[in-house]
């Protein structure tokens, strides 16, 4: 196949590209410049697509003898990922920008362009297994990224090659070392690439300004404090609430109401939910017949729980959870898996969380 390898400059995409070459594909490397104001040097484990990262990617491509280009997708990324992220928080939801980037940039803008230029697929260094159109968890549970790929449709998956799903992160680093890649020991990236200082609340405050509102105790209905912006909170959040309610029992964010900017908090017994309603789902393959039993993961790195998947309103889903869950935040993706201990859990699809009960 003629494939386009998305090379961030990190060790995963470097090894994925090398494995694509080994597999006999005709590989071209491309580094995506996603930030409108690229920094010259990388700062620690955060941030992305600095000039230094592009250099790291180019070094690997040159060692592999594959053509390498930089594609400027800053405009698309800003519009489809960063602005979406801000708008979601402004609406009281908790978005996952990595998922959005896979959905709209890597396996949409990049894949579409690649196909138009004559490539068959896009190679990435994601830790997830993809074979015969089936998307499954990585063998490395700690590094599994199937959650942020679950939004891909069958057509998108048909244009994806994920060479790393069957190996651990440790093995990826070993391969990079064996091949003498300078990025073999490069730090993993963390957090949100477009918030290099890791201060999401500060980033949102700069974008959205002060939007003070009340913090209300769910048990009493009393206003127990004030916040500077509801976007600083996520459903299920426990720390940093900035209020004292009289007793010492921990409080959790139960809900965020964007119009009145009300953040509702409550004790653990009120924080659990047994039912999740989602927007219209996407499926990685043929849409399964409802209802059916599955496991659902409600946030990145969350623990999956059994559930019954039933029809909801307006083409959405209603998920009846097998056990009460805390911290199910609207805006996050409810990813459905078919458990399969041997081959890796199969990703069925996902729906964005709209509401819980």
């Amino acid at each position: 196949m003629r494939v386009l390898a998305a090379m961030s400059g990190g060790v995963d995409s470097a090894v994925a590209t090398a494995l694509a070459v080994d597999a006999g594909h005709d590989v071209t490397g491309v580094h995506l410049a996603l930030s409108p104001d690229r920094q010259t040097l990388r700062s620690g484990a955060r941030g992305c697509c600095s000039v230094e990262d592009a250099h790291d990617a180019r070094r690997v491509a040159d060692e592999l003898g594959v053509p390498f280009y930089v594609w400027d997708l800053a405009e698309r990324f800003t519009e489809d990922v960063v602005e979406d992220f801000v708008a979601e928080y402004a609406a009281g939801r908790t978005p996952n920008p990595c998922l959005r980037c896979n959905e709209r940039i890597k396996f949409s803008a990049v894949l579409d362009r690649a196909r138009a230029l004559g490539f068959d697929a896009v190679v990435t260094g994601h830790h997830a297994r993809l074979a015969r159109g089936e998307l499954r968890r990585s063998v490395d549970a700690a590094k599994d990224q199937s959650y942020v790929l679950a939004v891909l449709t069958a057509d998108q998956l048909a244009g994806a090659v994920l060479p790393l799903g069957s190996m651990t992160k440790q093995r990826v680093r070993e391969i990079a070392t064996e091949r003498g890649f300078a990025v073999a020991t490069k730090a993993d990236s963390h957090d949100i690439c477009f918030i290099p200082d890791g201060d999401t609340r500060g980033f949102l405050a700069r974008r959205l300004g002060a939007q003070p509102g009340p913090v209300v105790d769910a048990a009493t209905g009393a206003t127990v404090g004030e916040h500077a912006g509801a976007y600083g909170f996520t459903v299920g959040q426990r720390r940093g609430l900035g209020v004292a309610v009289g007793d010492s029992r921990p409080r959790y964010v139960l809900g965020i109401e964007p119009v009145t900017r009300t953040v509702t908090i409550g004790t653990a017994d009120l924080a659990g939910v047994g039912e999740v309603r989602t927007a219209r789902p996407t499926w990685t393959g043929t849409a399964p017949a409802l209802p059916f039993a599955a496991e659902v993961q409600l946030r990145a790195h969350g623990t999956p729980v059994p559930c019954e998947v039933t029809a909801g309103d307006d083409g959405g889903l209603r998920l009846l959870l097998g056990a009460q869950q805390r911290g199910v935040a609207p805006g996050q993706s409810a990813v459905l898996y078919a458990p399969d201990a041997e081959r890796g859990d199969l990703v069925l699809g996902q729906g964005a969380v709209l509401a819980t009960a």
Partner: protein
Amino acid sequence: MSSSEAVYLDHAATTPMLPAVLAAMTGQLGRVGNASSLHASGRAARRVAEQSRERLAEALGARPSEVLFTGGGTESDNLAVKGLFWARRDADSHRRRIVVSPAEHHAVLDSVEWLAKHDGADVTWLPVEPTGRVTPEALHAALGTGEDVALVSVMWANNEIGTVSDLAALAGVAHDVGVPLHTDAVQAVGQVPVDFAASGVDALTMTGHKLGGPMGAGVLLLRREAECTPLLHGGGQERDVRSGTLDVAAIVGLQVATTLAVAERQERAARLAVLRDRLVAGVVAQVPDAQLNGAPLDDVVAGGPGRLPGNAHLSFPGAEGDALLMLLDARGVECSTGSACSAGVARPSHVLLATGADPDRARSSLRFSLGHTSTDADVDAVLDVIGPVVERARRAGMGRR
């Protein structure tokens, strides 16, 4: 495709080293000697360096004392722009204005912008013709009385679109109001007639690797009476304007390349123009809406070519230059988008924008530049693939809606 099979049409970026240059350099590389040393080895090195200086001066219409060896075109541009600015301003603090074309190479543009940001320079951007040419009338209008002007910098031939300006006329206009003029002639030397003395320019940048010499070796021709403050301080090897141990092997390579390029210029230019014209005609035949950027192919300025003979710069409406480049690269044709790259990110060409082209046209351009190894087969190779490549690039669009 391996580079040995590649169709190399990026001679304006760099051109293959001439065999005579390689021989001269390897001969020198095996010899010890610092040209500043007083003993026999030093004297031998100095003799080679000074012979090279004399032959270069002769080839370029300059005096040997006007030849300053530098580390290349970028250094020569920096030295001329900053050195002339500092010297002129220090002599008269009112002279802070730099009159410059917006279509210059970044080595000039960024030097000027650095002086504006850090050293109090005022910048007057010259209007350029739609061809990219700077006219004497435009320079005259921009200079005014010239009393507040430190220097003028206008390139002899543009590196992207190949447009040649009349430097003798521009130098005359500058001198009428007592202002020195620098020209970046990196693309012009060996391509069009360049005579330093006859042109009257005060400082001229050239470099070796654009005409078959080594990289990292360049020249600033600086008139004897021109005051220029040094950038690099040290041993003062080059007229106390530039310091650093002379790289004798590179200098002899630069000299051999330049003298050959100048001696063979007329014959080669005629040959390249024929190839270039066939390339452009063939591309336009397959892609009828392709647009030639810069001056017409047969343009004439000051009795010489108005466009570099090896330059074909075309826009392909609806296609992105970087997609075209990638598709051609995959088919073994090496060319350039001709635009400045910011860490590999394609930007619309500042040169085309300066000529008044809209950003889409500026983004959709490709530069094919022919040189001494170019053949009919190279042109055929482009014409074999250009139609489908443009069609495919148009389908690909860009990551924009």
